[in-house]
């Protein structure tokens, strides 16, 4: 199927000024370009979690699996193993992917499963109206922590580097062209691709000024250098001051989980014979 309208008629309910619009637009442009290049979108699947980010499954007119909170990655892994021809893209939230589903994220990186994970990291729970997430800064005052959080944030970029992800990047919802490039690179990458997108939450965590003063592009960085990638990732701990690098931290080519795990199918007749052979061995 080609020439489709990439946006569904579903009513969009994101707040005005929400960073999700930018992420969706960048993704839409990447998909449109893919179609222009003569590649069908029939083999693309979007998997979303639960949260404001996840509404993108309703809005983008492509195959989608609107999954559970924190459970994009196992579904995406199943889809990819079932049909390695699929291009599988996860859109997750930070509460979604770094709290409820953190184990899946680490294991996906460890396995190097060929999927793309885009984290809409607004550093606050939006849909449940303003609680802290794993990337909220220390002292964040949310509805569950009115006196401020007592725990430091995770650094997801550093975590993904340590977990074996082969494509690690960070984008920002106010830097659309860069975001589009990162999405395109991640989707093309053979292996586990991770992009933490700093996303403005217009309602609960509007920190555009804070980001504006700190972000810079990783222009002179060698993405093949893991140590340098760690160093760049540690410049900002998602809490205090420090410069916030945007762009690609790390890139490597390694064998993928799907290449290693997927079995060569057998015909029904071959299987029935195998069943009989197994039974014969047990007699």
């Amino acid at each position, binding site marked *: 199927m080609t020439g489709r309208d990439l946006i569904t008629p*579903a009513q969009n309910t994101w707040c005005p000024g929400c960073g999700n619009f930018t992420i969706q637009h960048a993704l839409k442009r990447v998909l449109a370009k893919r179609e222009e290049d003569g590649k069908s979108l029939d083999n693309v*699947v979007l998997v979303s979690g639960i949260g404001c980010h996840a509404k993108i499954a309703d809005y983008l007119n492509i*195959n989608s699996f609107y999954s559970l909170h924190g459970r994009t990655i196992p*579904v995406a892994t199943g889809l990819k193993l*079932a049909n390695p021809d*699929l291009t599988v893209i996860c859109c997750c939230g930070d509460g979604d992917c770094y709290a409820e589903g953190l184990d899946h994220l680490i294991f996906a990186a460890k396995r190097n499963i060929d999927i793309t994970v885009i984290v809409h990291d607004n550093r606050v729970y939006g849909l449940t109206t303003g609680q802290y997430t794993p990337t909220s800064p220390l002292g964040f005052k949310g509805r569950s922590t009115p006196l401020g959080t007592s725990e430091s944030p995770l650094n997801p970029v550093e975590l993904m580097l340590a977990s074996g992800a082969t494509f690690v990047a960070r984008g920002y919802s106010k830097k659309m062209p860069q975001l589009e490039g990162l999405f395109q690179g991640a989707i093309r990458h053979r292996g586990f691709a991770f992009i933490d997108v700093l996303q403005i939450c217009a309602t609960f965590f509007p920190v555009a000024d804070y980001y504006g003063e700190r972000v810079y592009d990783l222009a002179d960085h060698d993405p093949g250098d893991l140590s340098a990638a760690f160093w760049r990732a540690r410049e900002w701990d998602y809490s205090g001051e420090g410069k916030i690098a945007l762009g690609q931290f790390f890139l490597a080519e390694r064998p993928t989980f799907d290449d290693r795990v997927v079995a060569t199918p*057998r015909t029904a007749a071959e299987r029935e014979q195998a069943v*009989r052979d197994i*039974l014969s061995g047990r007699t």
Partner: protein
Amino acid sequence: MDDVTVLVGGKAGDGINSAGTMVAQLLNHLGYSVYLNFDYPSLIRGGHNFTIIRGTAAPKSPGTCGEKADFLLALDQATVEQHNNRLKPDSVLLYTEGLVKANGQAVPVKEILTTEQAPAVMGNSAFIGGFARAAGIDWEIVDLVFRRHIPKGTDQNLRVARSAYDRIATVRPVPRGPNPPRPLLNGNEAVGLGLIRGGLDAYISYPMTPSSGLLHFLAGESERLGLTVVHPENEIAVILMALGFAAAKKRAAVGTSGGGFCLMTEGLSLAGMAELPVVTLMSQRTGPSTGLPTYTGQADLRFVIHAGQGEFPRLVVAPSDASEAIAWSSRALDLAWRCQVPAFILTDKTLSEGTYSIDLPDRDLPVPGGDGMEAVEGPYQRYADTPSGISPPAFAGTAGVIVKVNSYAHDEYGITTEDGEVTAAMTKKRLRKAETLKKNLESYPQVVVSGAPDAATAVLCWGSCGSVCTETGTRLGLRVVRPVVLEPFPKSLLEAALAGATRVIAVEENATAQLAGLAHENGIRVHDTVLRYDGRPFTPEDLALRLRGVI
């Protein structure tokens, strides 16, 4: 003698289960129908293990073991101490010379190994040779069983076995039985073969006793079966991955026990809402919580039937033995896909880890329909509201359609909705699939009657208790009624099977009589219960005793 029981006991790590399997194969090739139950604590080394192997001349595996043993093979002193009460006046006791003190025949294991310059691991072959001679089993059968089942170091193992065979006296000759040698399979493996015959593409599981045997079996055979096998980070990932497979048109099954299934329930509810088929082997052990990890129970029937938030149809089948497990696992996978519902194969330790003589059932699945895509016109509706409740399926990767799968309440296209009317209509659509599921089940034997079918007193049981109930019911002249399908509950078939019964006694391995409760909800009266919940399966002796107390 057409009913023989052998107990092999020793320390964990002594290879008791493999020794038991060899004894089972000897009885198999002697013409007996076999059941083997392995009793072991949850540890790797030390502790006392034993297997009980029973062979009968009946055409079907007995599926249960009695409390007495005709042969006791004691590889350690604990076997003699703990199982002394199983000995009858004419029972035969063989023991390891120098290691065990007992009245019986000593097997000079150490001396034989030294003479044959054999490694310690071959010590059990001496025992098996000794047992074969004590039971008067022809050497040619011993030779055949060793050649078929000990592919490594066969000749040396046979020399060790022969050496013991020549030193032991035949005291309790076991005559040849009437049956041809058949495959011996445990319940987990039977589920695996059934799923394979149902068209399984992938098996996904996190290890948990007593279900792990299926993971090990399918992983070991994955290449020749053409099966993708994955062991992910936890049971949450397990079921979600399986749903990913289903959304890409690949048939996936998962396996676990109660604790792992707790973690799967959010994924199960998603399967119900998103209408994605997945088959779960739920192998029960003694609960609650960690419970007795290596012992049996039937306390999760209610849990499996009701698990997951919200209301959606599901299939729950509880086969009683390995042959039935093959047949019903194929059917469960077929029905899950035909009706786009989650399905369960509910077993327990007794069935999952028990070894049975099996007869491969005929593959009785209906011819698969088309993929239903012929009817699609205009934009594809993943959740089209049809009279059967079943929407023509399409999958991620199906050319020319956009497939939207959704965990939220959704419209026919799969787009999220909060509209009350749409929500109610889609709920009704999903629940209609239960009726379609019932229709699809009609050709199968959902309720099995055995024992004395016309007796006025009936035993109501389910799952692995079927074997012990049938044996005891036959002996006591009781009707035995066993629903294999537990959800959708086969109310009218059960009523028909119980017609004329004036007294119904539920026999279950749980403390609250869960099947009796389900029967009651369906208007079927149960007059009394016989329950066991110490982690051990009923034996024919204790069941007979307790049934006599209530009939």
